């Protein structure tokens, strides 16, 4: 993928994430703390969270197509980086207790692995479906070659 295409992809994801964070903050705020007041600094937080979310995605960039093994290594590194960013964010906000940090780390790991597994299952189903389509294509091509 070219740098330009990758940058466009990351930028699109950034705006989607920031919008979703805004919507989530609105819904949760209206449900649990309807009367809270904020200063203008509150508007920067979704953007900060958005940037934090896309930083781990940067490690998957490659000019050439990566092998499956290389992609797995990058995905592991991406998950590790995500863990690091989230835990750092929690610590910057003054939380150092292991009873908070360890469950956070474990839950991020579980969610991350779960997302990869679901994604792989969906892709595997798609691959099987495409394999059948490919077989039909090959049979049709052979039939057409000598008609």
């Amino acid at each position, binding site marked *: 993928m070219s740098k330009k295409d990758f940058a466009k992809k990351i930028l699109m994801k950034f705006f989607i994430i920031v919008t979703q964070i805004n919507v989530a903050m609105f819904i949760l705020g209206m449900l649990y703390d309807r009367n809270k007041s904020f200063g203008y600094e509150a508007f920067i937080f979704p953007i900060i969270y958005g940037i934090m979310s896309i930083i781990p995605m940067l490690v998957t960039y490659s000019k*050439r*197509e990566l092998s499956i093994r290389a*992609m797995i290594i990058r995905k592991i590194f991406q998950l590790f980086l995500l863990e690091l960013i989230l835990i750092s964010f929690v610590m910057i906000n003054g939380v150092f207790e292991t009873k908070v940090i360890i469950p956070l780390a474990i839950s991020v790991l579980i969610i991350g692995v779960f997302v990869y597994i679901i994604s792989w299952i969906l*892709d*595997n189903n798609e691959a*099987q479906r*495409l394999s059948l389509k490919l077989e039909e*294509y090959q049979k049709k*091509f052979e039939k057409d070659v*000598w008609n």
Partner: protein
Amino acid sequence: MKVSIEKISREKEQEVLIRCHEVNGEVLEIAKFVKATQEGIEVFYEQGMKVIPLLDIYYVEAVDNHVFVYSKRDVYEIKMRLYEFEQLYGERQFFRCSKAVIVNLLKIKSLKPALNGRFLAVLQNGENVIIARKYVSDFKVKLHGGVQNE
């Protein structure tokens, strides 16, 4: 089955004639083989130059301003750019599966997931090529015979 070869002058058209008692599977296979080997491409290798049938090509790859074609066991260089090969043969069984690779769809044995929305095409000779995420939708269109949303 008796096999005869008759050399003719250049003025006459080359022809393969199969004389048979019955048009059976064997005869059809021979006819199919001859038809399929008609089209070839000029390739270069250490010993010189030759023409190989298009059907023998598994995939084509561009590496460092050179373009290579891969057959079942051999690798040859061709004197054209990847986009030129795609323009010439892309309407047939050849498909651009990534920025640097064109694969022969007839040589793909199976498909597997390859993370990040990509697929791994396992070829009949055991090699693998990646179908990049950007090209997956075009791949689906190609398999549907060029018709979208089937």
